[in-house]
């Protein structure tokens, strides 16, 4: 019983990490239909900038804030320098641009930060909390809480604010959105800033648990992408559910079946879900209009 609880806590912690990354994906996807493969690099930057700001003497909250703001600024720069000039290019070309950008950011991080692995202290102490024979780190609660807060925030943003609806409208039909007076370049800029900021926040929250280095981005991007697709790309609900499902599934497989093939379990479930729901759990079905 305590074993099951432990697997569950482990799965939810990891799942919340994936969900945070997946939530970052939804913003840019909703605004531009592009899956931004540099999303993982935002997570890396969040962690790395915090590490170095903290080491330079900034208190942890200030260091974290610096990281989020700096990464958001970088997201805007990426949009202005790499995505906007290529507007109208085929989606595959845009995806390759984001891959190029991720290689570039990783290369820059390697030069600036070096190749060492880093970590900074957890926000509210390191002592594990015991629940019914299982344990969880206080930092895990921060991660889970962060995922929930970002989810609620995004959900409110998309459903309750004019700006959020403008983002969705832009994704549905850019031209129509422009015609009704939506400032689409601003929507894009905002999406990149928010997406990068969310990614960086994820990095800040998870680094005390997962540690960070210049090349951790890819693994986050992969799992986050898989989680987002499982849930249905573009939907915050899907990102949260997808992340948690993948995380819990991995932990359960590692605990009860085989740790060697725990990643396989996640992908087999993705296959199964997509077989019955080709648009993911919460994605909208698209039909050809003729």
């Amino acid at each position, binding site marked *: 019983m305590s074993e099951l609880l432990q*697997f569950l806590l482990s799965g939810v912690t990891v799942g919340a990490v994936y969900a945070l990354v997946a939530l970052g994906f939804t913003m840019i996807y909703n605004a531009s239909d592009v899956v931004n493969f540099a999303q993982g690099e935002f997570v890396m930057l969040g962690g790395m900038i915090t590490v170095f700001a903290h080491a330079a003497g900034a208190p942890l909250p200030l260091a974290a804030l610096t990281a989020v703001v700096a990464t958001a600024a970088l997201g805007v720069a990426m949009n202005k320098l790499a995505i906007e000039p290529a507007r109208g290019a085929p989606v595959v070309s845009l995806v390759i641009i984001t891959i190029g950008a991720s290689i570039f950011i990783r290369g820059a991080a390697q030069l600036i930060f070096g*190749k060492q692995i*880093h970590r900074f202290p957890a926000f509210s102490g390191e002592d594990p909390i015991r629940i019914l024979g299982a344990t969880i780190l206080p930092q895990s609660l921060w991660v889970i809480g962060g995922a929930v807060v970002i989810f609620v925030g995004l959900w409110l943003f998309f459903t309750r604010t004019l700006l959020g609806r403008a983002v969705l409208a832009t994704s549905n039909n850019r031209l129509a959105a422009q015609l009704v007076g939506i400032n689409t370049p601003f929507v894009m800029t905002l999406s990149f800033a928010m997406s990068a900021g969310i990614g960086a926040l994820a990095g800040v929250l998870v680094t005390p*648990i997962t540690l960070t280095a210049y090349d951790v981005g890819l693994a986050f991007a992969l799992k986050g992408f898989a989680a987002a697709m499982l849930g249905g790309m573009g939907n915050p609900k899907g990102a949260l559910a997808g992340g948690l499902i993948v995380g819990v599934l991995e932990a359960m497989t590692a605990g009860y079946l085989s740790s060697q093939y725990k990643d396989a379990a996640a992908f087999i479930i993705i296959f199964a879900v997509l077989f019955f729901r080709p648009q993911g759990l919460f994605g909208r079905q698209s039909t050809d209009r003729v």
Partner: protein
Amino acid sequence: MRNLLTTAATAALVALAVPALAEIRIGASLSATGPAAFLGDPELRTLEMLVADLNAKGGIDGEKIKLVAYDDGGDPNKARTFATRLIEDDEVVAIIGGTTTGTTMSILAVAEEAKIPFISLAGAIDIIDPVKPFTFKTPHTDRMACQKIFEDMRKRGIGRIGMISGTDGFGASMQAQCKKVAPDYGIEIVADETYDPRDADMTAQLTKIKGTAGVQAVLNPGFGQGPAIVTRNYWQLAIDLPFYQSHGVASDGFIQLAGIEAVEGVRLPGTALLVADLLAADDPQKPLVDAYKAMFESKTGTPVSTFGGYAHDAFLIMTDAITRAGSAEPAAIRDAIEATAGLAGTTGVYTFSPEDHLGLDLSAFRMLEIRGGTWTLVE
């Protein structure tokens, strides 16, 4: 006018030709980036540092060393390409490198065919067993690491253990070797779990090991952040069993990453490099270890690791061989390397022979235990 041109041309030719004659080209293909960068990066920095240092001291018999180093990113296919480039295009006389077993095996094939001496920095026993004429290596084999750990376990009366290994080459190879030699030490592996090196949390695997009946100790082969997370999870779950790491984490960086509270009592087989202060004054490795540690840490600002030490020793063996051979001919260098005897490095004291291209024995490993955030020798 024409005279002037001729003179200029001749001068240019001489300028180009002279260094080519008076320098010894040594090649390196290392995983300075990619999944094995944790190993390859200190190796590359060490080589660059040592070459600069040696050249500042006048090189070998007045000939400067030119290091041609490529980053293969841990990809064996790239490593083979760079090995070909080093030999065919850069015309090096010897190669150091192959951070991982995969890249080493790729370089090895090329070096053997071209008859270029090659010193690998990777662990697997397959590299030098069976012995190949031109291939040598400096690190202990992963089998030796297992033996050293099991020896210590046997002394503590441990007979049943759980293993949790990384699925990277380092972890997987050591996992396989440990399973092979465990019976020799009367040790039974009753739980055998793995994790992906990029995983964020290993409590599920550790909980499973914890719940396995009769486990008396846990061993975690791996390198990079994986073992640090495993160690933190081990502490989080309050598992009250002796915990062993491998030489893959033998660096002060590990203690910082995993946290002093979590690493207390962790044992691992390490090299003299980690316990420089504890070495006896007359220890043959002492001067070298002290010098390397001081140089690396002042130049890079990061703590030394066993891996940088492997590169250090490879370079030491290579330059020692070139000096003794009195020639930079590949065949002569090879013969000189094979004749190396009693050469103290950071990892151990090397004595090669035609049957042994590793040149180390178990005594080079020292069983270390982390106490109060620092390394201590287990006796």
